[in-house]
């Protein structure tokens, strides 16, 4: 390693460890306080539509088939086929080998195609494999890449390696947006979440994302709050806006609205668009649609009236 990289690594470490610590009790209390807000009637209707337009409809199963991906794409473009006023979702998120199927199914709809890459979900693969994974997904037409960081390297303090990887993947992405998955369920502390957020943003991430959905706990409100503070502070410091995507564990409309309140109160209304905030989930969409129909008809709906996915 040259002296220059060594100096860079030392500077990065000094910077990340110089970030102020997170007050655990305070952040949990703040998140719980904001989650207690009541959003009703017309505000709720707007929140539901906004949440639907922010959903990254996701299928990341070993059992995924082209048919299932096409069905999901149809749902992404027309979440409720019986009601044209329902907005389309932001993107469909699939494994790299399904990108082509999704791109074809979504052409002309305006729904993005996101692909996980870099040996998702563990990230345990040689660098060349991760880059090849990314290039393949971009070549197949993915407009967004969701990469995972090397949590092992991060936790053992090798921040420079994580930084290098993100930079290299960002290069490989070309025009595609890069979302960096921190997998906060494995980072152990809020301090680490804050450091990983800054690390990813300095390395060029367009979005920072909480989780793969394969590790419990997935997205939580306090973790998202810490990440929202990070993007807010990063924009103030560096002048570049970075998006946030909580993923996993968001199942109900109530959950989704709690996240929207959190965004508005922490990062600000600039982030309240699908360009800067996403919800990684699939089951939440049906609940959003059921609540939407309840508001429209005045009658509680049931899961029988929406597609299974």
């Amino acid at each position, binding site marked *: 390693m040259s002296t220059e990289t060594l100096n860079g690594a030392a500077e990065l470490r000094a910077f990340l460890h110089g970030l102020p610590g997170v007050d655990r009790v305070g952040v949990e209390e703040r998140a719980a306080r904001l989650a207690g807000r009541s959003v009703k009637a017309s505000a709720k209707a707007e929140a539901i539509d906004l949440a639907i337009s922010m959903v990254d409809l996701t299928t990341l199963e070993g059992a995924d088939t082209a048919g299932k991906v096409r069905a999901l794409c149809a749902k992404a473009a027309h979440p409720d086929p019986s009601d044209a006023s329902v907005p389309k979702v932001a993107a469909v998120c699939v494994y790299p080998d399904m990108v082509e199927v999704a791109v074809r199914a979504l052409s002309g709809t305006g729904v993005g195609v996101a692909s996980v890459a870099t040996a998702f979900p563990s990230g345990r693969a040689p660098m060349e494999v991760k880059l090849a994974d990314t290039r393949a997904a971009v070549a197949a037409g993915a407009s967004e890449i969701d990469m995972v960081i090397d949590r092992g390297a991060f936790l053992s303090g090798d921040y420079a390696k994580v930084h290098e990887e993100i930079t290299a993947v960002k290069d490989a992405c070309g025009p595609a947006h890069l979302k960096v998955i921190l997998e906060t369920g494995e980072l152990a502390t809020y301090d680490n979440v804050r450091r990983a957020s800054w690390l990813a943003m300095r390395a060029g991430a367009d979005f920072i994302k909480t989780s793969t959905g394969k590790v419990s706990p997935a997205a939580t409100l306090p973790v998202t709050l810490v990440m929202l503070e990070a993007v807010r502070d990063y924009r103030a410091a560096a002048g570049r806006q970075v998006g946030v995507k909580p993923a996993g564990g968001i199942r109900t409309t109530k959950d989704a609205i709690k996240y929207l309140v959190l965004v508005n109160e922490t990062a600000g209304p600039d982030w309240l668009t699908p360009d800067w905030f996403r919800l990684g989930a699939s089951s939440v969409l049906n609940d959003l649609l059921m609540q939407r129909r309840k508001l429209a008809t005045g*009658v*509680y*709906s*049931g*899961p029988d*009236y929406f597609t299974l996915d």
Partner: protein
Amino acid sequence: MPDRLSVRKTYKLYIGGAFPRSESGRSYPVTDSKGRFLANASHASRKDARDAVVAARKAFPGWSGRTAYNRAQILYRIAEMLEGRRDQFIDELRQAGASKGAAGTEVDAAVDRWVWYAGWADKLAAVTGAANPVSGPFFNFSTPEPTGVVAVVAPDSPLLGLVSVLAPVIVSGNTTVVIASEPAPLPSITLAEVLATSDLPGGVVNLLTGHRTEIAPWLAAHMDVNALDLAGALPEHVRELEDKAAGNLKRVLRPTGDDWAGEPGTARMTAFLETKTVWHPVGV
């Protein structure tokens, strides 16, 4: 030695096998037959009703998938647990206005009713199903299946009436959301404690206390409820509830004017069954 302080009981809802307070935080005072304060009961909101339907829907595959024999055992177990709390129920029925003798008779009748319906669990298919004659080389069978989630407006007979409408719904594998008697909800909640300790899976029976006129229309209109038993609905509300139930073609059982002390008969069980007919070729 000073008198012991009395331990007042908090009566709550029974949803998904747990005893939560109402989501709305409301409660209403329940008085005895002479107007004296007895306790505060939870005053359920429409959101509690929604949560109860979700719990009942979740419990449906498991409960309807059990063998009829197993459901019979669980209903019989309910009878045993009810018998064990006989004195408590007699006290609560007397507070609601029954004489000591009448209260004892009612508790005994309620226990017997569980046993009677428990016996029906594994006989329903034989009695209401059929092997149908067809002019071809086929077998043709009709078998009864549970309807799904049944919403019940319970009658004002808080123990025997409730048991008489509850047991026939769940014996065949349905799950249910029950609105307890409004003037006398306390024995109903105590019955929920019996259910909770009887191996009955959580969510099969969900019990709400509060105003019938407030909650029943939400259940009647709910698209994820499959049937509606109006046993305790006020006569002037039956028409409105039937109208709302038409939205997703619920089965509706109108108030039948039953004498709960009388012989139950099978009508209430068969009201919440669907008949499935299947063909089998002969010799395969």
